[in-house]
């Protein structure tokens, strides 16, 4: 079965037809569409399918908040063709069996590559290493390891993990939060607003000291470290220095840290409670600049669905996290309208695929590449409605906002998963 994507402008430049046969791009240029399924992409921008380094799919354990299937749908609607599913499920993804189960659920859903992230430590407890090698050797081929939600705080454990994953080309994705400087109740950027609101502060320094330590550990071990959801200007400075030294460090930023600021917490609305917390405008500016100049390699959603009742607590008791898959591209376009489509493809597809070691993702739109393509209307805007979402949860900070550009079609392995902004299998 063949698919012709007609008239898309590749990375916003040359218009061309794309022929996808048996899941592979076989022709780029002018294509005779007769007898083939045709996707009209006139006026749309074609990008390689987006790749999310940081998604919480909640299955197993909290299937009331999200499942691999509903999260995959949200991902496809957002233009993604691969997501990395974080390990902080219940049970934790800290064995090969658990990783393979998530991977299989992803295959059954069949809408995106669901690549499990393995825990660094057993039960995310930060003490003993999880079975990193067995997860790597499993059918799920785990390459990214993270205790996300918690920091691998013990320097010795972090050092050993970095050393150990070198054997199979793994990478440790660190949730950088020194728990002695920002404990479990820390929920508001520490600054004037946290002082006024009387909320436990989460100071930027609690992230920065861990980023600084980890780049030194990466240098010492010769291993690769990835910094998850960078949120402060200070962390950016450390990353810039580390990259200049040639240290193997990569970093991601979330869409929300590129656009939302800490002052949204003034009304104590737990929708805006996220970890790391929303920061002041100076940090947002530094993160945008770092993404544009390559100091930060990737945008990753940290899509974190929560059941409504888990957000209807007092602010300090409410769950951390916000949705992000369906809105990621729109937020990036809104926050950084000056970013070229080539750059967008780099930070939302090529770099994340490279960091995660996903060989079939993030490839240039050229003959021989897998048919993972997203088609975007660059001039449209989308009014976000939290009720109109594929996710099972509604903790959507973008509700009621207008975001730039619109994901029109998503093609995953040559198969249309999203057509005209709706799931292709919905009918």
């Amino acid at each position: 079965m063949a698919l012709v994507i007609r008239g898309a402008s590749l990375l916003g430049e040359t218009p061309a037809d794309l022929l996808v046969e048996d899941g592979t791009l076989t022709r780029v240029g002018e294509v005779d569409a007769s007898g083939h399924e045709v996707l009209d992409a006139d006026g749309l921008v074609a990008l390689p399918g987006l790749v999310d380094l940081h998604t919480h799919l909640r299955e197993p354990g909290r299937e009331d908040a999200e499942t691999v299937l509903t999260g995959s749908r949200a991902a496809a609607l957002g233009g993604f063709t691969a997501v990395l599913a974080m390990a902080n499920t219940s049970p934790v993804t800290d064995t090969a069996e658990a990783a393979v189960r998530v991977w299989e659920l992803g295959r059954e859903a069949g809408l995106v590559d669901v690549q499990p992230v393995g825990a660094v430590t057993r039960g995310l407890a930060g003490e003993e290493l999880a079975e990193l090698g067995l997860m790597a050797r499993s059918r799920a081929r785990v390459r990214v390891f993270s205790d996300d939600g918690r920091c691998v705080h013990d320097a010795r454990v972090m050092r050993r993990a970095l050393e150990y994953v070198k054997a199979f080309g793994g990478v440790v994705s660190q949730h950088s939060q020194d728990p002695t400087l920002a404990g479990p109740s820390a929920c508001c950027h520490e600054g004037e607003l946290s002082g006024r609101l009387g909320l436990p502060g989460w100071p930027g320094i609690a992230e920065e000291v861990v980023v600084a330590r980890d780049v030194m550990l990466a240098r010492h071990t010769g291993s690769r470290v990835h910094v998850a959801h960078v949120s402060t200007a200070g962390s950016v400075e450390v990353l810039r220095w580390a990259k200049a030294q040639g240290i193997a460090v990569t970093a991601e930023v979330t869409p929300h840290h590129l656009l939302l600021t800490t002052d949204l917490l003034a009304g104590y609305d737990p929708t805006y409670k996220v970890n790391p917390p929303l920061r002041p405008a100076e940090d947002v500016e530094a993160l945008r600049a770092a993404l544009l100049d390559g100091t930060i390699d990737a945008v990753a959603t940290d899509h974190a669905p929560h059941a409504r009742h888990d957000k209807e607590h007092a602010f300090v008791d409410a769950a951390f996290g916000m949705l992000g898959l369906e809105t990621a591209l729109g937020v990036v376009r809104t926050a950084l309208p000056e970013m070229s489509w080539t750059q967008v493809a780099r930070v939302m597809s090529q770099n994340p695929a490279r960091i995660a070691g996903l060989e079939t993702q993030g490839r240039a739109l050229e003959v021989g590449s897998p048919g993972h393509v997203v088609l975007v209307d660059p001039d449209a805007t989308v009014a976000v409605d939290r009720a109109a979402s594929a996710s099972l949860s509604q903790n959507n900070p973008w509700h009621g906002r207008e975001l730039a550009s619109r994901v029109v079609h998503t093609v995953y392995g040559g198969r249309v998963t999203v057509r005209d902004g709706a799931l292709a299998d919905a009918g």
Partner: protein
Amino acid sequence: MRHLLSVDDLSVDQVEAIFETAAEMHDVQHRDVKKLPALRGRTVVNMFFEDSTRTRSSFEIAGKWLSADVINISAKGSSASKGESLRDTVLTVCAMGVDGLVVRHPASGSARQVSEWVDAAVVNAGDGTHEHPTQALLDAYTLQRRLGSLEGRHVAIVGDLTHSRVFRSNVLCLTKLGARVTVVAPPTLMPAGVAAWSAAAGFETSYDLDAVLPHADAVMMLRVQRERMSGAFFPSAREYTVGYGLTRDRLRLLRPDVPICHPGPMNRGLEIAADAADAAQSAVLEQVSSGLAVRMSVLYHLLAGEEA
């Protein structure tokens, strides 16, 4: 006035109206029959998610002297730990038909959140380390009775500012009434971002209590919890007292007419010496009786206006 969540919600006129009514209520306390019919048929629930004796009894008596039906609900422990959301907890109570909901909760912002979920008038009786507006109102009311207008008067607030809702409400209330406020604490007990906050809000900060006291027209001592030592906020109770306690020696730095306030409960010997607490210029017990009058006034303004 629909709710009382923060001192910031009140205009100067509203504060003065509360004080005016409070003065009338104050007289009731000295009658043999201490009961007004103002809130007959109205139901006030004191919903306390953390321990409190004085604030709860003050609200309870205030409601009863206004003839409201007052019910106390103790719901200690976070609702999260019981598996029930805070929203469900308060909606359940309010479904019984509640006109006024007096909320004390260990989480900052909880009173505001509750007010968004329920129809009842909500009074913030202390939300975490955020605010305690009736405490600030009763403090200002007490000081006005002693000093007259607070315009241009210099009030020192001393102690654990980081963890104090009393400080946060007081700084709002006193600056609103034109007082000059200096807050005094060791750097570790100053709230985050206080430099920017104080500059914007027009109050002053100091680490040096001895330099501030001689110029004060009133001093408010805040409770210091001994468990703060384990958070490395200060080294020892002894060192705290030497630096920031209102000791017998420091009492001499105050003019004899300067009122000494403390929201209670007092740690005698830690932040306040017995000589200061029991001094002729101490306003501590007056604060308690003023508290009753101010809370009667607040309940009256929130609940008596509408038809029952």
